[in-house]
């Protein structure tokens, strides 16, 4: 199972003075069970890209294939695709509308045509999965804190049992603990359920800590598509387009430039610590 993008282009307001090419010749293959980070500054095309993955936006040219099927085929079940590829927008708590949390999470499954009972089971599972305590289930979603609301909104998409979930900056505006809680929950879900996760983020530190592969978008094009180490090796090129590597990667590079025998392939505090300790151990031996 996979999703393949073949030479996808997208042009906003084609034929007018405001014409903008938001996606340029994008080729991608996302395999089942991957944990992918998408980075790029505002306007780099990352939001446009993820909306193509579940068919909310339609490519101006090029093809998208989900499990080998052309999603632009006129017989293709587009609504079915939307429940297979779940998309959690930025500030998803703004879409909550039901009188209770439980009912709100049921909205997706009911739209899929499930019975009330089945939808309820799904909602229960999803809310459990995002770690919301049970006594809150029948409260109004509007009484929750920001972090809790966000989790309800994520549960609303999870309840549709998607094979792949895309999250557009799920931690925007949350405090550090809230941020870690959400990201840990997502990582756990990926590990336990084997669901494919695409995480759009501005935080290089977060991306480096969780994902296995990073796609860097710049001016509508895929600039890099590699492992975190592989991408952040190009920290100079990233800087040139207004992005940066995690702070620890810079530190290691600077240490190495000063002639210290340190490995520079680290993007998290954990791995950087290991590299530095390894270097000190090797110095000690000498």
């Amino acid at each position, binding site marked *: 199972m996979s999703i393949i993008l073949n030479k996808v282009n997208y042009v906003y307001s084609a034929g007018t003075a405001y014409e903008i090419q938001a996606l340029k010749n994008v080729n991608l293959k996302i395999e089942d069970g991957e944990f992918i980070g998408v980075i790029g500054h505002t306007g780099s095309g990352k939001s446009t890209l993820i*909306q193509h993955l*579940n068919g*909310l936006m339609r490519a101006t040219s090029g093809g998208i294939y989900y499990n080998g099927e052309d999603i632009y085929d006129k017989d293709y079940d587009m*609504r079915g695709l*939307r*429940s297979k590829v*779940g*998309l*959690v*927008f930025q500030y*998803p708590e*703004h*879409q*909550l*509308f039901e009188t209770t949390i439980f009912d709100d999470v049921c*909205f*997706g499954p009911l*739209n*899929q045509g499930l019975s009330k009972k089945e939808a309820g089971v799904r909602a229960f599972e999803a809310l459990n999965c995002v770690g919301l305590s049970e006594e809150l289930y029948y409260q109004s979603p*509007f009484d929750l804190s920001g972090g809790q609301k966000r989790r309800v909104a994520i549960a*609303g*998409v999870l309840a*549709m049992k998607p094979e792949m979930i895309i999250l557009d900056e799920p931690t925007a505006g949350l405090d550090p603990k809230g941020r870690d809680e959400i990201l840990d929950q997502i990582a756990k879900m990926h590990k336990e359920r084997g669901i494919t996760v695409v995480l759009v983020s501005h935080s290089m530190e977060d991306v480096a800590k969780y994902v296995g592969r990073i796609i860097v978008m710049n001016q509508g094009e895929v600039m890099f598509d590699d492992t975190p180490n592989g991408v952040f090796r190009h920290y100079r090129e990233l800087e040139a387009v207004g992005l940066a590597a995690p702070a620890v990667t810079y530190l290691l590079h600077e240490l190495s430039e000063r002639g210290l025998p340190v490995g520079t392939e680290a993007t998290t505090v954990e791995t950087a610590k290991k590299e530095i300790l390894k270097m000190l151990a090797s110095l000690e031996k000498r």
Partner: protein
Amino acid sequence: MIRDITIGQYYPANSPVHRLDPRVKLLGTLIYIISLFVFKGFAAFVLAAIFLVAAIKISRVPFSYMVKGLKAIVVLMVITGLFNLFLTQGTPWVSFWVFTVTYEGAENAALMLIRLAFLIIGTSLMTLTTTPNQLTDGLEKSLHPLSKIGVPVHEIAMMMSIALRFIPILIEETDKIMKAQMARGADFESGNIFRKAKAMIPLLVPLFVSAFRRANDLAMAMEARCYNGGTGRTKMKPLCYKRQDYIAYAVLFLYLAAMIALRFVWTYLSALFGW
């Protein structure tokens, strides 16, 4: 469809019409609309057309913009035209099946269509050449005397300008919520009218919640910047008439005078020749 409505849109340019005081343009539009409905006769329409074309030329707004405004009300125009065409009593002209078109009906329909077209183009010309802020300023100042009898003129103007600022934001927000709900399988298109209305709930509730939140935030931000109603306020861009505005008033007066004169000449001529 919504994008076709040119009333309320601004076309940035630096023309004499753009530079006029908004009060002049407001009064001018009012006079023009009244003139369209009060005066009859071929000559009056020719004069009204000349006036409009001249104003458009001076404004440097492309003519296509004006016509675009007409597109939005084309249905309204067709209906008005048909009503006048078929429902006016008088001398029959042509008739088919159960319909009869009278001479008077044809004349009324033609008149009505011309009036509507001129009205829309004239009003669009004002809004295309005046920023929403100037417009509300102009309204506030023109209606200021009403505040003496307790009409909250300043507040109304302030609400209008804030509404204008937030319309694009709310449109964008609607789009975002709609997409978010579609990602959860919502269907806004299919079904009969009742199903469609029900499908709007997941869109409308979040939209209202968000609008209230924004209103609350905005009120707080305004208070924090010492907003305390209209009293004691000064203006960054106070309205004051310049030479060009007096000239414009004179032109308007001449137009009105010419219209009145034409009316008398027309009545005199009709009586003379028995039209």
